[in-house]
């Protein structure tokens, strides 16, 4: 029976595509039902928002750092642009249209800034680029804190931001980000980005403009980080420049590295895992950061390539794993 389905390979592609959409729809509906039934309470839901936002941040940073190989430490800067744009817009126009417009405007602003920052700095390599992106994120932070004080309320931050973000928006934007970026990776343009990570000189010799594709990856990453910021501000009521500092950029990078550079499913798994660990550790506030730190050290010691390496979670990979386990058991017997 199973063999028949596998053999009908023409249909299997459609089946897996349909399967994906059905899984997505089911997740959307089931969680919504659980929320309506109050089984998922506000506390759990806020963890879900953190997970969703972190997935978008990690997957978009993975495009820049994991796939294109450009070490960026300024992702929180792009996030803050989305957060502030959406907050300022929804504070004026407190409607769903204001919210959606705010999310899109935030993403577009972040992408524009990404373009103008990326164009000069992406000539730099490795650690030099990392330093330049830290500088960029700091400048954005200072702009929000000191220069644009009239509209951002400076260091005190913006509060009472209308809350439009709900499960449906969160899910649509998170799933959308993951699907769009995975699609991009599987295209010729995505492969061009990967080839720059692999060997920039060879890529250029094969007709790939490394500057063009680095900027594309950077701008795309910034765009989605802007969406993440907007979703964040529209749920947590309050934002201030200090939320989007260097520490936040590092947090995002940790998710990416832990999940595996160059693995989208790795970023998703790692975002969920870290949020769960951090929620669970809330009960031990004094030990929280110590345990968190030890976990990171242990995972990096035993799996330096991250949870998924550069592989993607797929049915064939799962099959390989189960066969591997079976094989080992068979060998023992």
């Amino acid at each position, binding site marked *: 029976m199973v063999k028949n389905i596998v053999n009908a390979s023409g249909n299997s592609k459609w089946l897996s595509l349909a399967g994906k959409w059905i899984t997505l729809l089911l997740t959307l509906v089931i969680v919504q039902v659980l929320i309506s039934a109050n089984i998922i309470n506000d506390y759990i839901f806020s963890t879900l928002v953190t997970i969703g936002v972190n997935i978008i941040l990690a997957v978009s940073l993975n495009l820049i750092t994991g796939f294109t190989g450009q070490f960026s430490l300024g992702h929180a800067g792009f996030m803050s642009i989305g957060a502030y744009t959406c907050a300022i817009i929804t504070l004026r126009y407190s409607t769903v249209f204001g919210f959606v417009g705010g999310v899109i405007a935030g993403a577009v602003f972040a992408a524009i800034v990404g373009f103008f920052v990326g164009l000069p700095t992406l000539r730099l390599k490795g650690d030099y680029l990392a330093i330049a992106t830290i500088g960029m994120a700091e400048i954005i932070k200072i702009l929000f804190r000191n220069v644009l004080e009239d509209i951002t309320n400076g260091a005190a931050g913006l509060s009472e931001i209308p809350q439009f973000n709900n499960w449906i928006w969160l899910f649509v934007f998170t799933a959308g980000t993951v699907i*769009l970026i995975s699609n991009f990776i599987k*295209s*010729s343009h995505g*492969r061009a980005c990967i*080839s720059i990570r692999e060997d920039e000189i*060879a*890529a250029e*010799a094969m*007709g790939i403009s490394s500057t063009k594709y680095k900027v594309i990856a950077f701008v795309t990453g910034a765009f989605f980080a802007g969406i993440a910021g907007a979703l964040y501000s529209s749920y947590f009521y309050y934002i201030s420049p200090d939320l989007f500092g260097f520490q936040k950029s590092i947090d995002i990078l940790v998710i990416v590295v832990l999940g595996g550079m160059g693995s989208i499913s790795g970023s998703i798994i790692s975002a969920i895992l870290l949020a769960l660990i951090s929620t669970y550790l809330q009960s031990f506030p004094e030990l929280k950061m110590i345990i968190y730190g030890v976990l990171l050290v242990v995972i990096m010691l035993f799996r330096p390539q991250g949870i998924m390496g550069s592989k993607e979670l797929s049915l064939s990979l799962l099959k390989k794993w189960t066969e591997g386990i079976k094989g080992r058991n068979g060998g023992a017997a």
Partner: protein
Amino acid sequence: MPILSVNKLSKSFGGLMAVSNVSMELEQGELVGLIGPNGAGKTTVFNLLTGMYQPTSGIITLYRDQKEEQIQGLKPYTICKKGIARTFQNIRLFRDLTVLDNVRIAMNKNVKYGLLSSFFHSRSYSDEEKEMLDNSIHLLEILKLDHKKDELAKNLPYGEQRQLEIIRALATNPCILLLDEPAAGMNPAETAQLTEMIGWIRENFKLTILLIEHDMSLVMKICERIYVLDYGMVIAEGTPAEIKSNKRVIEAYLGEEM
């Protein structure tokens, strides 16, 4: 009819003239060798031709589709798009990608669908991707590497890595192919196989090939014309037979007679 002409090309690194006043001409469909002792500047010439280095002075002209165009100082990817492809002396494959992806990446310059199509996987995406996949597999088939298409490039044996580099260069659909020591590190049997492959490619792809090589048996066997470089200068040019008996070439290789 020439396809590429190089006029008084020079490149200096600080005070060192790595290449000085090199002039050469490639005819359409020719297979030309570029030889010389170690450090003579052969790879530097390649790097100048492919835009990896900016020449200090000199002109490189490409004649393609009845147009002549100066290409010195252009970026490597632009030069590649104009039809000059190369391989590297120290293999530079995309090591952690599959053989198939190595070939497909080289076809990127022909992609017409835009970024939005790649995000939303539109119809033009699927059509072009399918065509690209078919072309890559076809190219791998005719050069007999299709059975390894899903292997990672780094897991191929050395000879096949060299072979894949040539296939990847061909995937960019060039009119001129520059091969930088394709036989380096190969045993005589592999070299013989490679010699055959180069000849076959040239016939079937209607290419002009410029070849750097240390293996004289290969150079003498397949090249129609040879340029000899020494200390960055062209010291001789001619058919293999002429080069073999050229006094300056022998001096450059064996040292002056006492």
